[in-house]
């Protein structure tokens, strides 16, 4: 039986239910997402090529990167850095990157951190070389998977960006990156990483590090363009990537990669 009390109560509930828009209940439909992925008509996929034979360890790329991307110059963090590897005749292996090679390598001594240095005699050197490092802009970026809030993501042209207004600073991505390219920005206190100078490459410019490199050791290209000189080298010459076994599909390719490089 409908009493007046019940009628009023039910009407109020019904009205409240109608007032909630349907959009509030919309959840993500995986089939819709697959369709989004399938119509991937992107014409651009940025990749990077590093020639370790050409790198002389001057560190001008690191200097340019820090100034271009407003990473505080004297802080110990940097978006890109250069590592020095020295393998001596006794089979020992030495590596360092003082200040990320911001000021280059102006001593033969290997920096062991905490103010300690190891002197290596020139005659003992079996092989020695420099390896620039930067974000690999992985095809399967583990740093993006672990972000709990959607503050880091991959753009259609393959670059992984960080949304500074949305990052909560949990640090999962910093732990998740197998290449150690992520850090906290000393000013914004959000996750920070190399983004291939997204503001430059989308304007048709080269990244700051590519432009600053006097020796052509760093190059950027579009792997979806078969006429791109970088694409041609990656397709026809012997190139390697870092930590392939992790399945991240890194998109920074190295010429002259050695087994000591990690």
């Amino acid at each position, binding site marked *: 039986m409908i009493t007046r009390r019940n009628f009023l109560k039910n009407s109020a509930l019904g009205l*409240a239910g109608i007032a*909630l828009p349907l*959009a*509030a*209940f919309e959840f*993500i439909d995986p089939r819709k*997402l*697959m369709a*989004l*992925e399938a119509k*991937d008509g*992107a014409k651009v996929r940025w990749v990077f090529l590093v020639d370790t*034979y*050409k790198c*002389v*360890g*001057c*560190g*001008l790329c690191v*200097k*340019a990167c820090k*100034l*271009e*991307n*407003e990473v505080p110059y004297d802080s110990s963090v940097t978006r890109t850095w250069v590592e020095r590897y020295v393998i001596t005749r006794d089979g020992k292996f030495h590596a360092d990157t003082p200040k990320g090679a911001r*000021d*280059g*390598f*102006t001593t*033969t001594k290997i920096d062991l951190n905490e103010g300690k240095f190891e002197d290596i005699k020139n005659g003992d*050197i079996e*092989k*020695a*070389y*420099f390896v620039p490092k930067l974000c690999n802009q992985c095809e*399967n970026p583990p740093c*993006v*998977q672990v972000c709990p809030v*959607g*503050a*880091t*993501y*991959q*753009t*259609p042209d393959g670059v992984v*960006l960080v*949304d500074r*207004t*949305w990052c909560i600073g949990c640090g999962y991505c910093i732990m998740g990156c197998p290449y150690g390219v992520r850090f906290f920005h000393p000013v914004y206190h959000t996750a920070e990483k190399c*983004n291939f100078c*997204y*503001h430059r490459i989308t*304007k048709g*410019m*080269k990244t*700051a590090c590519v*432009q*600053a490199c*006097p*020796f052509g050791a760093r190059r950027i290209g579009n792997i979806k363009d078969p006429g791109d000189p970088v694409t041609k080298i990656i397709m026809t010459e012997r190139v390697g990537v870092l930590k392939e076994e992790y399945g991240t599909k890194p998109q920074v390719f190295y010429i002259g990669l050695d087994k000591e490089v990690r």
Partner: protein
Amino acid sequence: MKNHVLRPLFAVIGIVALILLARMALVPKDFGVGERGYMYGWHRHGNEEDWKQFKVKYQGKEYCKDCHSDKYAGINKTPHQIIECENCHGPAGTPEGILHYDPDKSPKLVIDRSRGLCLRCHYPLPYPTSGRANIRSIDPVTHNPDGECSSCHNPHNPMEGLR
């Protein structure tokens, strides 16, 4: 059904509705799934544009060419032609987006004349399998330790002989 069963149910429905309403108000309108799907493309679309608006500081050699044509032409005849002007003279743009060529407020560039700058390449590191071994170098401890390199050598034409 009895009232004591329905009441907590209404309370739960109310809480869920509140959460959904709060989500609508707090999550930006352009937040959603991008081209790379849910796993990699879940983000606020406006952020891509935010990054594109970031200011370019390093303008490149061609930016200097028109006003400093003599220096530009001169250095291109020397081995130092591979070095960008801004590697020593500093970036031509500021974080505020003011460029060096601006009639009203052109910022003065800070030239790095330190010995350390030259030693980045010209410190002797005899490393095989690296181009570094082929660059002419000096020992900074014995080679005029107190002077600036540019007081004897012309960085725009290092082969012209000493000043």
